C-alpha cells in the first residue's frame, strides 16, 4: 500500500484534492439540491477519468479496468444522487 502511494503520489494528491473540493462544494451548496447533483455528476466523471488516465500512464489499462472505474463511479453517483431526492 505504502509503495503504491509513494509510486503514484502525484496522482493520489490530485485525487485527494479533488475529493476534498467536492466535499466542501457539496456541503456548501446545501440546501440547493440542483447544485449538489451537478457537483455529484462532476466528481463521478472526474473519478472515471482519473482512474483511466492513471492506468494509461502505467500502461495497465484494460477494458475491464475501465469498466471497473465506470461501475464504481456509477455506484457512488447513484448513492449520492438518491440521497438528495
Amino acid at each position, binding site marked *: *500500500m505504502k509503495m*503504491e*502511494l509513494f509510486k*503514484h503520489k502525484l496522482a*493520489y494528491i490530485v*485525487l*485527494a484534492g479533488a*475529493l476534498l473540493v*467536492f*466535499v466542501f462544494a*457539496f*456541503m456548501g451548496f*446545501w*440546501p*440547493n*439540491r440542483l447544485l449538489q447533483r451537478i457537483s455529484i455528476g462532476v466528481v463521478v466523471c472526474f*473519478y472515471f477519468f*482519473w*482512474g483511466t488516465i*492513471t*492506468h494509461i500512464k502505467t500502461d*495497465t489499462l*484494460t477494458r*475491464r*479496468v475501465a*469498466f*471497473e*472505474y*465506470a*461501475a*464504481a463511479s*456509477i*455506484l*457512488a453517483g*447513484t*448513492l*449520492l444522487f*438518491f*440521497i*438528495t*431526492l
Partner: protein
Amino acid sequence: MKMLSTLCHLFHPQRSNNHRPKVLHPEAYIAFSILIVVFSLSLVHLPSFVGRTGNVLGFASSITAGDVLAQTNQEREKQGLQTLTINTRLNEAAIAKAQHMLEQQYWAHTSPDGTQPWKFFKQVGYKYSVAGENLARDFGTSGDMMQAWMNSPTHKANIVSPKYKEIGIAVVDGTLLGTETTLVVQLFGSAPQAPAQITKAAPPQELKVVAEKLATSNPEPETLDFVQLEPVVPSDLVGNADVLGGESFLISNLQTPALFSPLQLMKAFFLAIIFLVMGTLIYDTVIMSHRNTVRLVGKNFAHLLFFGIVTFLLLFFKAGIIG
C-alpha cells in the same frame, strides 16, 4: 460447505473469482446500483400509491413558530434592521397556504391549479405594498431550517429585507405525498404606501411580480399571537380533514411521531451497501499484500478514498427542503 464456498467466492480473492472478490467486480457494482435505484424509488413513490404509511415514515420536528420568529428577527438584528411584528391576518394567510398545500398535495409557491401566493393575502384581507413568502419542509430543527434559508439568496432576501414590517408564520404537521412532515410557511408583508408589488422566494426571473390591485384598508399590527394546528391529512385519505385548531401560543410537534424518516431508511440501506464494499476492499488489500499475484484491476486505495468520501457525505447529509 456450499455456503462457505459461496461466501469465499463473494468476499475472498481466489482462483474461482479471478483473485478478486466477486463483490468488487464491476458487475457487482452495477447490481448494487440497480438495487439502490429500486429501493429509493420504492421508498419515494410507495407512500403515494398506498396512501398514508401510518406512523412509520415521516420527519419528526421540534420547530415552533416562536423559534422561527425569534431566529428571523435575530438575523434582521444582525443586519441592523427593524424586527418584524406578528400580524394575525398574515398568520391566517400562512396557515391557509399550508393547508392548501396539504389538501392539494403539492409543494410549490404556485399550486398545480394556478393558485398564487398572494391569493392567501387577499383571502384574509391583508393589504400590502410589498409581500413575500418562504417555505420549508422536512426539517428537524428551526436552526437547520433558518440556516438553509440564509444559504439561499432569494430566501435570505426576504428575511433581511428592510421593506417588510410584519410577518405571519404557520408551522403545520401533516401528510404530504404520503409522508408525515412539518410544513413551515413564512409570509412577509408591509402596509401599503407605494404602488403594490409582491416578491416571493423563487428563481430570480420570477422574484418580483407586480400585484394588480391595492386594497383599501390597512390591517392593524396585532400583538404577538400564534396559531397551533392539529396534524392535517388530505381529505381524500381521511374522512373529515378539518384543520384549524386553537388560537394562542403554539407548539407544533407531530402528535404521533413517525418511526423513521425516509431519509433515515435510505441512509441505513446505502451505508450497509457501502460498508460491505469498503470492508471487502480493505480485506482484499490486506490479503493481496501478502501474495505475489499479479492482477489487472482498479486501485483499491483510490476506491477506498472515493467510497470513504461518499460515506462521509451520506452520514452528514441533512434533511430539509426549502421553497
